[in-house]
């Protein structure tokens, strides 16, 4: 079975649509799993979420989804401005759906969670080996798929309990062999921050236990124009073409 793992769409309809179209070509019939942050930053929170409602087999909650439907604080100024705008924009059915998203979903040997898994509600980033170890050791599942950092990355727990960190190469399938335990950050669909502006997602092949990262070009100009037209901070538009 193929699973398309998408995360951190952030209201970017152009990027999300491009990734879904790409998955239809390279991984037809793949199950779509979205690892949270449907909204925030981008100008199409309703359209993105409604598209996910129809297309995603599994969805989990991100911190921006929580902030837009609840009362999370402690965000950066740009993020807070975007959340305030998103709150005022969300349609009732979208708000309802987002507010009911689970924090994590476990399926066979896989855990889907937005941030570090030992305390998902703390929304901690998995950027380094220590955080990866904490998350991997807290999880029951052999494989953890996360988002939140907007950077594609792979951590593995070795036979002697050391952590390997690996920056995946686009389109090169990376084996995640048994019995090792792995944590993958699948990058960001709607606001990549690893220097490449192309939308990022990953495809997991359950039979081969291989993860392949994809980069998808999309209509950045339109996504950025919508952000500006909505009166959101300009930086949220300009960073899309920088990729960080």
């Amino acid at each position, binding site marked *: 079975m193929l699973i398309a793992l998408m995360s951190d769409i952030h209201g970017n309809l152009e990027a999300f649509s491009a990734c879904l179209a790409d998955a239809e070509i390279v991984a037809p019939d793949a199950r779509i799993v979205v690892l949270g942050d449907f909204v925030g930053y981008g100008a199409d929170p309703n359209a993105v979420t409604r598209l996910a409602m129809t297309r995603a087999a599994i969805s989990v909650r991100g911190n921006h989804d929580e902030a837009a439907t609840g009362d999370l604080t402690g965000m950066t100024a740009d993020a807070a401005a975007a959340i305030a705008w998103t709150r005022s924009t969300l349609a009732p059915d979208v708000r309802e759906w987002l507010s009911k998203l689970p924090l994590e979903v476990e399926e066979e040997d896989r855990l889907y969670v937005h941030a570090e898994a030992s305390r998902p509600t703390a929304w901690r980033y998995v950027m380094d080996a220590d955080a990866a170890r904490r998350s991997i050791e807290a999880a029951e599942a052999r494989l953890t798929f996360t988002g939140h950092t907007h950077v594609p990355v792979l951590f593995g727990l*070795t*036979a*002697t309990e*050391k952590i390997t960190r690996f*920056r995946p*190469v686009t389109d090169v399938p990376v*084996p995640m*062999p048994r019995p090792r335990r792995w944590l993958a950050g699948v990058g960001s669909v709607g606001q990549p921050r690893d220097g490449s502006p192309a939308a990022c997602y990953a495809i997991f092949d359950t039979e081969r236990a291989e993860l392949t990262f994809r980069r998808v070009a999309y209509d950045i100009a339109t996504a950025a124009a919508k952000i500006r037209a909505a009166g959101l901070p300009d930086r949220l538009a300009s960073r899309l073409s920088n990729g960080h």
Partner: protein
Amino acid sequence: MGFGLIGGSASRQPDLMHRLRLTEGAVIGGFVVGPRLHRGGMALIHAVTHPDHPGPLVMKVPALFEGEDPAAIVSFEMEQMILPRLHGPHAPRFIANGDFSAQPFIVMERIPAGSLLPRLAHLPMAAEELAPLGALVATALEAIHRQHVVHLDVKPSNILLRESGEAVLIDYGLSHHDQLPDLMEEEFRLPYGTAPYMAPEQVMGIRSEPRSDLFALGALLYFFATGTRPFGDPQKLSGLKRRIWRDPPPPRALNPDVPKALQETILRCLEVDPERRHPSAAQLAFDLRNPDQVVLTPRAEKLEADGWRATLRRRFNPEARPVFRRRLDEGAPPPAPILAVALDLAEAPDPLLDDALRVTLRGLLAIHAGARIACLHVLRQNRLAPDTSLNPEGQNKHVNRLVALRTWAAPLGLPEGRVTFHVLEAIDAAAALTEYAKANGIDHLVLGARPVSIKRRLLGSVSAEVAMLAPCTVTVVRPYAG
């Protein structure tokens, strides 16, 4: 594997449990187990058959019976990752992997010919045999380097020869793939490799340097040329590190029959600093195939190892000590291609075309700092009397053309060693250039277009034919027509 220094302690083994026994006649993953062919420190190898896979096959399984060395498991995982990603004649064809949850195994094609190991009984090997053999191995290394793999355990027992002539590199258990996680690097603090062949930077734990394989091949060539291992077979890390500051006696000191060009090539492979070795395995193969074109430096003339002063300096002076750096940007090293330019010296001189050719080459050299250029001229032979090189007139012509090639290349200002000159004698120029490009691993062939004439319209031009047939990129240069 001759050398195993373990850094990490095995605090938790993966569950390696209830394992099927590899007895003859057993069926594992659909493969029928045949006789055992080899029992090594890290793995067992059995002949196997499968109804869907014709041809002789072998199954490799990790040796887990003694010592509980985690390296055996990790290196097996690495080979399971890397072998399926290799293609071409220089690696064994991958058939199937078996999961660690049942019986871990790798099935691959069985290469009937043996390894180079039995040749150790007949050393030293004559240069006329050794240099072509070394070129075959270097060509195989180039093929796997281009597939993002550094072998890191090049030694006689890991080199097989196909009946069709190509060298095959086996055993990717210690290898590094620059697009895959390196499980060995993270797992073990100290180096894994085979002591007599391990490059200095590999001793220091760097696993991403393709030129480590050139060092290992250089150690092998030294051993085969002299019958003596250049660095012995140290069993401790301190003994391994000795090669960082202590150079071996030059091959010609041990075997005066070793030609200077071969000594030059071997000692360049054995340079402590990878930057001073050949920039690529293809360039090493080129030197081994063209010994008359190897530029002889003081390395070729040496008859003694460096004196105690130089040795002490390298050992204790921090400024003289080599520094091994991991490449900052992960990924493949910059390519160091072999360029060739074909010059038609026989026709009337065409300064505009010559300038245009040199401009093109300068551009290529500016992009590829490690590139080298082979300057070619085809001396056309008369179909009826082809042996011109045997008579004085022909010999003279040959030498004249070499001189003309050197003169042509002089304005490029290339240092010796980065440019070579070759006069090919052939009836068919296009076929000769194509064959040369193939035999010497040329990456990019540059040649000039001649003005269209009636004859060319009818017969087709050399450049068009080369562009169609050559196994590499071909640039046909045309001067600005005004």
